[in-house]
């Protein structure tokens, strides 16, 4: 049942009188059928507080989801591309079974499109090209930090298996630099494969938009039916 809304002019309960948007200020106006006094319909403070809480809750959920996905992809993309480099260099030197070479490219098939879909859907308010470049730069930064740490600790070989080119001929830092560059190139390949995720992101965006509109329409219809009953 609607919440009571008493006309301050004559005391008539306007709860069942439907409000309309007045053209000047866009306020929901109710005109008393008895005394013709016009009042605006306000939401009950409890209901307003609940709606504010729901909006805040939704915002924080989206923020949490964005941060979780960012953390997840910031871990999986560097490690996936590192695995790709290790696999390729191992196959070249016949360390690993070359029959399964295509398995090393799983980041291109999974992480890349997932990243593309996320960057398209989650950052639709930003320039897409800059978003992709920014994410790649961020990945390069955190990977560089990892390599730098490994170089400082002087245990590149044990920390990262990439440095298998020719350990005898390369000093530690140079090996680290070569390893880092190959890692960055592999991440660049993953980012290129992320382009395949853009249509996926568009699709999700459209789907959620339609869902939101449908839910809003249904709520509005229900409210209208309730007030008419």
């Amino acid at each position, binding site marked *: 049942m609607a*919440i*009571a809304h*008493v006309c*301050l002019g004559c*005391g*008539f309960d306007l709860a069942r009188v439907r409000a309309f948007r007045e053209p000047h200020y866009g306020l929901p106006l109710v005109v008393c059928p008895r005394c013709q006094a016009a009042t605006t319909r306000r939401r009950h403070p409890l209901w307003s507080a609940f709606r504010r809480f729901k*909006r805040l809750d939704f915002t924080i959920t989206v923020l949490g989801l*964005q941060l979780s996905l*960012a953390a997840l992809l910031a871990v999986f993309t560097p490690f996936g591309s590192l695995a790709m480099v290790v696999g390729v260099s191992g196959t070249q030197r016949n360390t690993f079974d070359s029959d399964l070479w295509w398995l090393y490219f799983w980041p291109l098939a999974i992480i890349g499109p997932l990243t593309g879909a996320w960057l398209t859907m989650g950052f639709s308010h930003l320039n897409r090209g800059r978003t992709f470049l920014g994410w790649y730069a961020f990945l390069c930064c955190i990977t560089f930090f990892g390599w730098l740490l490994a170089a400082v600790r002087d245990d590149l070989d044990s920390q990262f298996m990439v440095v298998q080119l020719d350990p005898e001929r390369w000093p530690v830092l140079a090996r680290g630099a070569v390893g880092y560059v190959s890692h960055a190139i592999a991440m660049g390949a993953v980012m290129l494969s992320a382009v395949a995720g853009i249509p996926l992101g568009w699709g999700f965006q459209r789907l959620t938009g339609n869902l939101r509109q449908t839910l809003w329409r249904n709520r509005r219809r229900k409210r209208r039916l309730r007030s008419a009953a």
Partner: protein
Amino acid sequence: MTETPSGSRAAPATTAVAHHRVSSLTGDRLCIRCAYNLVGQPILREPHYDMLIVRCPECATVASVQEYPLLGPWAGRWAAVAAGLWLLFLMAFWIGTGAMIFGFSVGVGEWSADKLSQVFYHDYAAWEQTQRATVALNTATRPVGVLAAQPSTAYQVWWEGLDLQPFINSKGGWLTLIDWEALLLWIPLGLLSFVCGCVWAVMLLANKTRARLLWGVCIMAVAVAFSIIPLVDWLADGSNSYGNISRQILGPIFMGLSLAFGGMCLLIGLVVGRTAIRWLLVLLLPPRLRSPLAMFWLADGLQPPSTT
């Protein structure tokens, strides 16, 4: 109200005035005292102030219908409980932040002394072998029935006979005897302190920069207070093991440096935390979702974010 000659109070004359019924409630409205739903009750025009009222049929409480109904006493009670819980959380987080900085600092202090500890251990082991060889020689060459004077292998004796500065110089100087890998702990220390500073900057939303910095000093006071425990432990009796000696020498310095570093990162977080959070929100959230978090802008006197 009037006083009768007999002293008893007479009922006010106004009670006799009848309320004028103007309408009846068709929507929901709960009684402010007993929460009874007043739907269907008559709306009355009361004669004293010409106000519109509804009287609860259960408890006869009069509610003015000009305002929204109140929540009753429980709203205030729950608000007090929530405020108390929030205060408890803030206190726990205050202690926790200080304890985190202390924990990393004591870790750096102990780790930095590991190399020196190993050097002491190897030197003591060599000295002990020499002493044991002397004991064995004395035992083998002593005449029968005579007790030979035996050199001690006790750790204390070795330490008292050690001239520290020449010993350190002979091992390559202080810089080579410090385990610099301990400083790797500064990475998580700095990051976590900065993040805690940002979180505090958000939680202390009503405070300006100076007050937040003062709060940072309070957090560091907790960390320093905790640090007294290992300091007392290290400095109380440092000569009973090579680990304790090395920690006694290097521990306080590196713990102090780590405390200073953690404190600096915390203060940076407290100062730039809100800006960082605002930047993160603009980056991660589309405009229509930013308005519920407008308080982060309004708290610093900035324009709230646009919703378009």
